[in-house]
């Protein structure tokens, strides 16, 4: 009788221990995930919150004294499609675009999740600036079956070093800031035409404008910080978490918005 009672007590104790530990650890895991990591994935507005990665000890990459902005992507890639809007917006503050041709990313039979994202292609695009040189590589066409452009040796070296998993889009801002992946979610663009997206961006309203603007701000801030380094006005900063106000003050006479 006593033996049975002890056995029963031991089982109860095991059950309680299991339930308490299980509930406690599950709560901790969920809390950690939602407090610290959820912002990095897709949110309800579809904006990716991942920041640029900052390598303060790298030497700036320049060409004839100008900052080298590198973009590696592909026409089929919906993430590249979303990111290009932000790149165009950010670089417009420092120079002029021409020959930007509208395209759509991969169709549904190739990309079932985010098909036909309206965007520009950089293949024939020309960017002129007295501060920045734009190196672009569109690796494949819209269907992913034709190679369009190849990386040069510097681009390849940076890509291999900072993006070993081979994710695109890959962005390098002067070899000091890097982005792997998009800061704008392609989910926002699904089902929209090129004109509809352009209208939203021109009207400066709506979720697409907000997401593209936010990402272009990040890119602009990073560019400003590298330009500050190049111009010799090195200022102390820890990351790319500058507000636009700070960036504006640093550059004194031009608002980038």
């Amino acid at each position, binding site marked *: 009788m006593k033996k049975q009672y002890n056995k029963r007590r031991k089982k109860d104790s095991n059950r309680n221990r*299991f339930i308490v*530990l299980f509930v406690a650890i599950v709560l901790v895991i969920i809390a*950690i*995930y939602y407090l610290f990591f959820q912002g990095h994935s897709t949110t309800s507005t579809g904006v990716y919150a991942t920041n640029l990665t900052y390598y303060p000890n790298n030497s700036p990459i320049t060409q004839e004294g100008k900052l080298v902005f590198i973009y590696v992507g592909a026409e089929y890639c919906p993430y590249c499609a979303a990111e290009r809007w932000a790149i165009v917006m950010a670089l417009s503050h420092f120079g002029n675009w021409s020959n930007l041709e509208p395209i759509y990313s991969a169709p549904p039979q190739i990309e*079932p999740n985010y098909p036909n994202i309206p965007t520009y292609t950089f293949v024939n695009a020309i960017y002129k600036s007295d501060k920045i040189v734009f190196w672009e590589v569109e690796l494949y066409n819209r269907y992913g079956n034709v190679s369009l452009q190849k990386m040069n040796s510097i681009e390849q070296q940076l890509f291999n070093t900072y993006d070993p998993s081979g*994710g*695109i889009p890959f962005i390098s801002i002067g070899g000091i800031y890097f982005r792997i992946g998009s800061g704008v979610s392609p989910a926002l663009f699904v089902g929209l035409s090129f004109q509809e997206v352009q209208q939203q961006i021109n009207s400066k309203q709506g979720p697409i404008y907000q997401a593209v603007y936010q990402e272009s701000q990040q890119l602009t801030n990073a560019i400003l910080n590298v330009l500050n380094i190049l111009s010799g006005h090195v200022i102390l900063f820890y990351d790319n978490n500058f507000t636009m106000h700070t960036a504006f003050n640093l550059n004194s006479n031009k608002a980038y918005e």
Partner: protein
Amino acid sequence: MNKLRISILAFSIVGFGDSAFITFFESKALASCSVNISLISCENVLNTPYASIFGIPWSLLGMIWFLAFLLLSATKYDSFYAYLTFVVLGTSSIIYLLYLEFIVVGSICLYCTVAHICAIGIILSSIYLIRNSSLNKKELI
């Protein structure tokens, strides 16, 4: 019997670690496409809306599932219904996830595959444990 428990424990630890890696490190960096358009691509799998269910990542649910078996074996809580519940949940989820990977998305993620292998190991060990032991069917959670 102890060997079965040890194998469940071992698979649970590996599966839990793998799921945690996907949840906290791998999936957060992936807002990108893969340059290599191939069958094996975590980017293709983890960037799709199918990587989560009702807004909860499958990898997070996987962590909780592996944790359940880790604790079941570590605490020696021999509950028939606890094992049965988690085996049924795990089996149905794996069948659905494999369907998503192979049929819907058309790519497989190696990290996910490691978790699937661990889960299958746990399920088989658990079925063997349920069939060949005196797991207390009166234990309910």
